[in-house]
């Protein structure tokens, strides 16, 4: 029996086996590949999406549990006219991504944090942003979260004296 849910504002009926993790339904059945597979045990956060607004590690959530719920993926963050979300814009301004693979999950976690706290403090960022970035973009993620919420950069200093 199909599982009824909503992805990025559109209702969908999912054919996947009920024990299939939401991640693989998003990637393989819906073809939305912005949400990434990193570890499969909810340790790294590369698969983070919003389920009813809550940041959720989709690799460890059986699709049966999202019946009737509303899911947002990285592809659903832009507004209808294609304008980037303020957090996405901040990510570009701060030149956050390196390899970029974890960044969909980082952005989804950051958006949820900002929606919850308004202007998160460094301590709140440390507590909420537990996604792994092997490239080590943490100082820029912090800077982008502050910038997206109108706070002055507190973390890494800007480039200087390099010419």
């Amino acid at each position, binding site marked *: 029996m199909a599982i009824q849910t909503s992805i990025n504002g559109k209702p969908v009926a999912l054919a996947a*086996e009920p024990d*299939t*993790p939401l991640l*693989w339904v998003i*990637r*393989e*059945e819906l*073809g*939305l*590949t*912005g*949400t*990434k*597979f*990193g*570890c*499969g*045990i909810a*340790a790294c956060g*590369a698969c983070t999406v919003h389920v009813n607004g809550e940041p959720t590690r989709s690799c460890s959530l059986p699709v049966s549990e999202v019946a009737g719920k509303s899911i947002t*993926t*990285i*592809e659903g963050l832009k507004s209808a006219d294609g304008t980037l979300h303020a957090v*996405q814009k901040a*990510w*570009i301004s701060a*030149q*956050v*991504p*390196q*390899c*970029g*693979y*974890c*960044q*969909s999950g980082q*952005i989804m976690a950051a958006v949820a944090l900002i929606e919850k706290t308004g202007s998160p403090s460094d301590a709140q*960022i*440390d507590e909420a*942003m537990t*996604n*792994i*970035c*092997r*490239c*080590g*973009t*943490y*100082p*820029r*993620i912090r800077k982008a979260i502050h910038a997206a919420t109108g706070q002055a950069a*507190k*973390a*890494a*200093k800007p*480039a*200087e*004296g*390099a*010419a």
Partner: protein
Amino acid sequence: MADNPTAEMQPAAPAKRKGVKRRAFLIGGVAVVGAGLFGISIADSNAAKSAKARLESDGGHSFATWLKIGEDDSITIYSPHTDIGQGSNTGLAQMLAEELDAAWDQVRVVSAPAEPAFANVGLGRAFLADMTGQPAIINGIPQSFLSFIARQMNLQMTGGSTALRFTGRVTFQNVGAATRLALVETAAKRLDVPADELTTQDSHVIHAKSGRALRYGELAAEAATLSLDNAPKLKDPSQYRIMRQSMQRLDIPAKVDGSAQYGIDFSVPDMRVATIMAAPVRGGKLTSVDTAPALAVKGVEKVIKLDDAVAVVAKGYWPAISGLRALTPEFADGGNGGISTASIFKAQGDLMAKGDADSTAGDGDVQAGLGAKPIEAKYQVPFLHHAMMEPFALTAHFKDGKLNIWGGMQDPLASKMMAVDVSGLDADDVTFHPMMIGGSFGRRLPMYMEIVGQVTKLAMQLPYPVKLIWSREEEIVQGAYRPQSSAALKASLTKEKRITAYRNDYAQPESAESETVFPYALPAVSRRHFAHVSNQQTGAWRSVNSTQQGFYNESFMDELAHAAGEDPVVFRRNHLKAGSRHLRVLDEVAARSGWGSPLPAGRGRGVALVESFRTIVAHVIEASVGDDGMPKVHKVTTVVDAGSIVNPDAAMAQIEGGTIMGLSSAIGEAITLENGAVQQSNLADYTLLKMAGAPLVMDIHFLNSGADMGGIGEPGVPPAAPALANALFAATGKRVRNLPILTQAKA
């Protein structure tokens, strides 16, 4: 294979120093190619023609393989490197566009096709000029490819921090400058004016006298028929408008909205997904497996047995991994079942105690200088996993005698040749389609990419395309780790607090000599390598041997400073050559970090200075130990001399990331063995640094001494671990000699 390139590849020049031999095939290759400055050997005009035809098939006009100018003024640059997120493609584009005087907003970069015509001659040529380097990187090239290089000098490798300083400097700046001259020559003819009355700017050739200007796009067709000058004059840096600017990276927009397509994201109709488990004790073979439990899982279509692995092919990843987990395959241990972390350390210690070194480097009479009572310290570091965030994933399809493979690699061309080897097909029948890579750090060099062989074997026996994805569990236990390594250091001091002799004995699979730059001027220095090989595959891990050697030497220098009763910065300064770049970096980091100024209670400062890949980096770290016994890094001050920088902000990002990767490994990372198998299983027990553990303050400065351009992706890593260990000693009086620190915090 690395130690003995085949006989047909005789070096063109005699090897003058130890460690050069392993690169001999490159020297031979350069000799073969000779004047092939612009990417294609002049002798290989067929390859040049086919490359030109291929690039021009969708319009535009090709210059020297690497560049295409469209009649609409679009500028496409074909990069032979894989941008793994280090920004190298943006940097390469800046270098070419600068010399071309291109309009930056018209420039885009795409991956060069994995074909011999797009092999990277610039990289090979620069290895010739740069005799200290990265043989461990070169090791990652398959045997069949070595002879291929010898014949045709083909290389598409990304690694060793080479993209900008070799490819960029040697090839791309010259291509840009030579193409600009061809455009000017064409414009001079068309406007009927002398070429020296023309200037170029923003993709236009301008004749100021008559107020006329021609677009590059309208000149391209004719200019592309001209021979390019193979020694064009390059700009003086004072004229730069695009280089040395923090241009926004071209790859970033697609990485914030989910549209970037990595290898794992590739999909074609009818594709199946497979996952695999290889022998948990490396070196073992598959002995038996009952396939029924996997085939009982809904969606599983096939179980395929390979020599040392079992793979499950299914309609999707979830049934594939569920099917694999349902299996209980039996593997032999290849005689390696007795190997453990402890047994390796013991064997390494025994080798060093015996004193029969496999190779020795250094100068002076160390034995005499050490005297009867040298200061001694022993250090140990574990295997490290790359833990790139995108697990191995490749898609392959064998149909009508042709094999196509899609995915991300540090060397697409060599990966293709590996698939040629495994499939037995002709090179012309194998096509590799490079895609974006979710991190690598050395893991995706072809020699270690077992997945190329695996997916080729699967595809050759399946009637449909198959995407093979490694689970993170497979990724962790089947690594190409930084080697587990031990060291025993000895030195003696004079009453005047000067080192008389310094010995660095270390045991691991390969010599670290080519990545070790010991900056201190001492009367007698000896580095002795004791070769010890375990059953584990070891490979290049970001900055290769510079991490272990950096930790050993910079920890020991700190110990010597304390033994001498001298400040660690002063002690280092007193052993560096006056006027040296190293000294300037050290002095700068001391000044900028407030070295010597008071710190809050419980905090200590540590310094470390390491040169790697021709770039000198010093960190000063402020750290303390938390109630849980874990180190807390409060601040990192860094000074970098990479000679010159192409993109300051991208370079900054690399130093930030490298520093954090170094701290992560020092604090929490270890691959350990028991009964021949890896004990860690996923990112829950191979623990990487997260946001809360990253330094809140990173203060990074570039000196830009004007020396030859050094690497930037790797050199931030090596000084991080020793600077942290030295800071912890300053804070607590407890010396960290074994990594990771986590294991001692728990003990």
